[in-house]
């Protein structure tokens, strides 16, 4: 029986060891066909969530369900089967530097399918075309720019037409044109293929433009979630500080330090 | 770099390495001069094997005809038993003698075979009956000193007569 949510995270707690707990008792839902954002400050645990969904790390407690089934990193076969149904776009592309553009996009096809060369060629060119880089197929990775690298990585992530596409900071460091292209691509791809997308980002404006729903994480907990309108109207001080980009609030401006009078040796 | 070109170059590299190994084995080492499995085994007993080592050559008329493969001690006769592997091409008469000789003055030791006159030849696993042990330098010096001392003694006696 197909569930409404492609991915469901229930009461998840994770830490690399007992002193460094990254996520505490978080629950998230990712409905099929929707684009959902996970926002928060750097180091709040956003990327860790992606790794947990992909099964590279194991939670201390709580469950992660993918299409109704538990994500179990100890069951290698099931894990690999799961990973073939998802595509992940890493922050700087993570393209294989020893292969050229074409070979990078063809990689998942070569590794997981027995398709003939001619079909692989067609698929790769179509995927590159979807991201607007069909003409760059024969370039070496060293020759492509940062924005291009991310688009090629996107083409690679969708090579096997995954049901779930995860984006790790897809907007970080892009110029306005590339930003527009990327946001556009994410939304169009999601709708055209019927996939579900999860975007980890701290770019509030772009996320609100293309996402159906958003979660806001701070210090390993969910401090707010909802549609763009709901979050904009939120009264929660942490949510407000993040959404509006206020320099000081629940997240302090000053790094913890002694009072300045003490440091400068002033009386009082 | 086309895949085919790369594979050709790697193949060349492997070939070059193989040629190097062949060169070293044949030109620098002794692979060519001695074939391995066409040998037959003989044994010889010596009172003293001296500095003979395994893989030392077995020579006859100065030509290498075999190798030493084993040296063990026989605690019944208190002799050293040496196993020789001799090239099958060469037959030796049954009364061939084996001597332990030294290359040069202070070099490695080897076994020299002096052929006898018997019609019958040594067969595999036969044992060489006549052997001469190695010359041990210390014994030689001891002999020399002893004979010098004896000479000196007999010289002294003569004037008395």
């Amino acid at each position, binding site marked *: 029986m197909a569930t409404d949510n492609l991915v469901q995270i229930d009461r998840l707690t994770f830490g690399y060891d007992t002193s460094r707990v990254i996520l505490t008792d978080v629950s998230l839902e990712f409905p099929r066909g929707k684009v959902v954002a996970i926002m928060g400050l750097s180091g709040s645990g956003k990327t860790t969530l992606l790794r947990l969904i*992909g099964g*590279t790390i194991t939670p201390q407690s709580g469950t992660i369900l993918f299409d109704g089934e538990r994500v179990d990193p100890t069951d290698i076969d099931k*894990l*690999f*089967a799961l*990973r*073939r149904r*998802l595509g*992940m776009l*890493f*922050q*700087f592309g*993570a*393209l*294989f*530097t*020893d292969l050229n553009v074409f070979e990078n996009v063809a*990689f*998942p096809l070569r*590794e*997981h399918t027995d398709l003939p060369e001619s079909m692989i060629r067609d698929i790769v060119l179509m995927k590159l075309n979807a991201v607007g880089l069909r003409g760059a197929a024969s370039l070496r990775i060293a020759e492509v720019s940062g924005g291009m690298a991310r688009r090629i*990585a996107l083409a690679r992530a969708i090579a096997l037409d995954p049901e779930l596409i995860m984006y790790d900071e897809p907007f970080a460091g892009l110029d306005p044109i590339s930003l527009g292209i990327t946001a556009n691509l994410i939304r169009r791809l999601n709708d055209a293929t019927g996939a579900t997308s999860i975007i980890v980002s701290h770019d509030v404006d772009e996320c609100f433009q293309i996402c159906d729903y958003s979660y806001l994480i701070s210090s390993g907990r969910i401090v707010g979630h909802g549609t763009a309108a709901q979050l904009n109207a939120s009264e929660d001080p942490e949510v407000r500080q993040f959404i509006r980009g206020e320099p000081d609030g629940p997240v302090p401006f000053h790094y913890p330090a002694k009072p300045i009078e003490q440091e400068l040796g002033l009386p009082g | 770099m086309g*895949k085919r070109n*790369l*594979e050709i*170059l*790697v193949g060349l*590299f*492997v070939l*070059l*390495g*193989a*040629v*190097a*190994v062949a*060169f*070293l*084995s044949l*030109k*620098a*080492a*002794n*692979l*060519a*001069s001695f074939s391995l499995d066409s040998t037959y085994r003989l044994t010889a007993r010596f009172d003293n094997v001296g500095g003979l*080592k*395994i*893989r030392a050559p077995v020579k006859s008329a100065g030509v290498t005809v075999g190798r030493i493969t084993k*040296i063990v001690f026989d605690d019944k006769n208190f002799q050293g038993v040496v196993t020789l592997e001799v090239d099958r091409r060469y037959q030796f008469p049954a009364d061939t003698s084996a001597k332990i000789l030294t290359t040069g003055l202070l070099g490695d030791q080897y076994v020299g075979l002096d052929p006898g006159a018997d019609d019958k030849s040594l067969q595999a696993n036969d044992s060489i009956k006549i052997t001469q042990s190695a010359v041990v330098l210390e014994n030689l010096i001891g002999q020399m000193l002893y004979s010098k001392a004896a000479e000196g003694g007999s010289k002294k006696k003569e004037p008395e007569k």
Partner: protein
Amino acid sequence: MSKVADLLAALGARVLRLLRSLGHASMFFWELVRFTPAALRRFDLTVVQIYGIGNLSLVIIVTSGAAVGGVLGLQAYYALDRYGAAEQVGLLVALSLLRELGPVLTALLFAGRAGTSLTAEIGLMKAGEQLAAMEMMAVDPRGRVLAPRFVAGIVSMPLLSAIFSAVGVAGAYVIGVKLIGIDAAAFWSQMQDGVDVFKDVGNGIVKTVVFGVAATFVALYTGYESEATPEGVAQATTRTVVFSSVAVLVLDFLLTSLMFSTKP
């Protein structure tokens, strides 16, 4: 008194850390061995690596081999000519190269050229999340990236060492026979008389395989464990050269005492 306790605690912690990294390294080594069959099955990947490790090292190996062989020949001549044994130059050079200098120098040059290249490559791949991306695409990076490089290193080392020794002998020939004027026939016959295929050539090859395993393992491990920063990768390459060299020299000592003992 508590100072002593602190010192002991620090020492204990140090020892535990050492044991831990030793265990970590051993497990990494075991993973490399475990995925070797996968590398052999995807032999096309291994071939690409043999090119990068072997072919691209040929220039330095050949030049070094020729130089070392030539210099050895020269020095051997000076030393042996005193005792009228100049004809033994070939034998001396061949034994030195086959037993020691060939395997050891090739391994050290290998660590410097191919080893650092491997370390930097793996380090950068890890830093750029390439290995994590591969894992997410359900391809095990140990079998696809690490094991082929491991196998390629083990295959390339004996070949490079043989080439080094062969070129070295040729270099000594050029110096000794062509330049100095030693009799060519005597040069070769003295050599052939004294060099044993199994003891000298064979043991030399065994040494290079062992060195290849050690040097390649060290290179891959330091790269894999490097910090994901430019300084981290640079430090890792330095560590590769140092650890590989020490490992090779220690192993050489152990192997030599095993192989070339004076017992029959």
